[in-house]
């Protein structure tokens, strides 16, 4: 079993059998931010707490990245293996809109308002051979 490590700590709960997005909530005005930050973008305060923001939301807007981005993009892909990916803002239950890669990558599969759910995906191997992972959202299938 290959060890998995978050590409960046603090973006989602990890290790966790059911990971969720992590954000900050302002203790003064109640507004949220992602990634978590110690200050508040809304009220200019400096008093926030890290909170879980859940794993589900609705797609607020989207596009498709058709070509492989240049530096600072850093994955194990090559221009030959690159697969276009969706990018969107997903509106979480608290209202915050979080920017994310999307599994869906065609116009037919993406629509504003569609229900989305979080998943963890590999980005690349680090020099110790561990798999670095990040978050993305994918279409939530009806139960």
């Amino acid at each position, binding site marked *: 079993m290959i060890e998995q490590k978050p590409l*960046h700590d603090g973006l989602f709960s990890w290790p966790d059998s059911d990971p969720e997005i992590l954000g900050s909530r302002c203790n003064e005005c109640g507004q949220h931010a992602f990634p978590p930050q110690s200050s508040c973008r809304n009220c200019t305060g400096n008093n926030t707490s890290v909170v879980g923001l859940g794993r589900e939301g609705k797609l607020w807007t989207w596009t498709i990245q058709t070509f492989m981005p240049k530096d*600072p993009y850093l994955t194990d892909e090559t221009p030959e293996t690159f697969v276009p990916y969706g990018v969107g803002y997903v509106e979480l239950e608290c209202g915050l809109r979080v920017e994310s890669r999307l599994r869906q990558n065609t116009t037919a599969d993406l629509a504003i308002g569609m229900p989305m759910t979080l998943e963890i995906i590999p980005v690349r191997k680090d020099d110790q051979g561990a798999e670095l992972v990040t978050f993305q959202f994918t279409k939530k299938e009806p139960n």
Partner: protein
Amino acid sequence: MDVAIVGLGLHPFGRSPSLSGLEQGAVAARAAMADAGTDFKAMQFAFGGSQDGGNADSMVNLLGLTGLQFTNIWNGCATGGSSLNAAYSAIKSGQYDIGLVTGFDKHPRGAFNPKPSEWGLDDWYGETGLMLTTQFFAMKLQRYMHDYNISRETLVSVAEKAFRNGSITPTAWRQTALSREEIEQAPMVSEPLNKYMFCSPAEGGCALVICRADIAHNYTSKPIYLKTAVVRSRNYGSFEVFAPSQAPFVADSPTVTASRTAFELAGIGPEDVDVAQLQDTEVGAEIMHMAENGFCAHGDQEKWIAEGRTEITGALPVNTDGGCLANGEPVGASGLRQVYEICHQLRGSAGARQVPNSPKVGYTHVYGAPGISGVNILAV
């Protein structure tokens, strides 16, 4: 003290392999001073900026070591707007009588590749493929088209106008008009925007000589008065580029706040403007900025553009020189190019692209990362 623009200079936009960005800036500066019938010895101050072309103040090596105050300005796409704002304040306050504003750039080919650390973000944001301005513009537009029923045909119409206007602008980079079919069939970059709907990084230089209004006639018979120069950053809730998260509501953009302030300070309204330059990093930006700057209601762009109201012969000509789409975007020079074009329109010296019936009031607007906007109102 009122403020006047009395000299206009531009080094053509596009690709100039034999000249550095700084040299293109110096060509523009000399042209602006010559246009005003003056020289660098008369300049009391200069403000200048560039993203990839080096430090603006090193231009003194090319213009002459006269000892003037030369301040570098760097404010992303609003660099030109911020330089002009600083020059405006320098004259308005009475500190100086006359000076130079210059901007230039020379970007590598291809899309910009900004570094997350320069924008207050961690590396994961760029490494996982979210650090692309093209994605932001596409996503803002996608939501806007959904909310206000803007059609793909309208996107094509804006690109068509840009290249048509570029084709009659001798200093533009793209001087070939494109058919609707050519635009529609271009490769998709970031849904719903294709290759001909985005501007590209480019090269070029632009400069203005600016002075006290009461001495303007010493330099030109047609001074253009800079009524106001306003720069604003974003408020909480405005939908902005390089933002891993956005507020649960959409607030007024920095364009709205800069525009509103500029109109208040100038004591006029959008209905008084005869010709405008609106930031068109991509076609959707021009469309959205028409409403954000107060020229029409959200959603009315569909009708305005179908009726040709933003054409050179329309009620509010927009981006008469082809804008960023036809000129490319040398970031440091781009905002000043807008002012250069409006000044020519108000002077009546815009050649084949001259707006008819002697326009009296002009307007320029830049927008850039990470959510800044600059608005200038000009009048004869």
